């Protein structure tokens, strides 16, 4: 599964994208983030305040309860500020 990070989340994690293989049982966006936080301190720092984090699964914006089973691309980012 491809993970994408944008804006300050990308900067805090240090990469814009990476391939990951979450373990069995990590099947929602929320669980994915909790799993990432256990990997390295930079993830824990980046996801300290998840209230400010938005998510898109396969380029459709959704929420933390959304399933990631079978997803090709999960993007995590701060609230958008374009326009």
């Amino acid at each position, binding site marked *: 599964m491809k993970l994408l990070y944008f804006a300050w989340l990308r900067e805090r994690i240090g990469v814009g994208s990476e391939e990951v293989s979450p373990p069995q049982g990590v099947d929602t966006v929320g669980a994915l983030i909790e799993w990432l936080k256990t990997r390295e301190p930079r993830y824990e720092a980046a996801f300290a305040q998840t209230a400010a984090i938005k998510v898109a699964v396969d380029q459709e914006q959704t929420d933390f309860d959304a399933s990631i089973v079978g997803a090709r691309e999960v993007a995590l980012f701060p*609230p*958008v*500020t374009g*326009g």
Partner: protein
Amino acid sequence: MAVRVQEEDFDPTTELEALSVGRDDIGALVSFTGLVRGGDVSEMVLEHYPGMTEKALEEIEEEARKRWSLQGVTIIHRVGPLAPGARIVFVATASRHRAVAFEAAEFLMDFLKTRAPFWKKESTADGARWVDARETDDTAAARWALE
């Protein structure tokens, strides 16, 4: 193309004329142009999510066309580094009557501000900072009763 994400600048007259050229059923063209404000900001960098951005903008366009009788819609958003005074975003609507064109253009901007995956980083003398999302943008979007 109705929706474009690009580094290059654009020309409002050209975009407005593209909406009405060769037809005579359009009475009203409304455009919104967003510019980079200066002050303590020396540069703005626009980051986006290639692939999803275009999709999100097309959904925004589709939603506007569902709600209003529009003869045309254009959405352009620039990405990359931009200087104060530069154009960032452009939306234009074409309709028979002005009320529809105005309302749809406002809707497009409100929707774009809260739904399209763009992020702004400002450079100032004190360093660079990511722009915070504005609560007023959520309020503005909420009045259209977005699902």
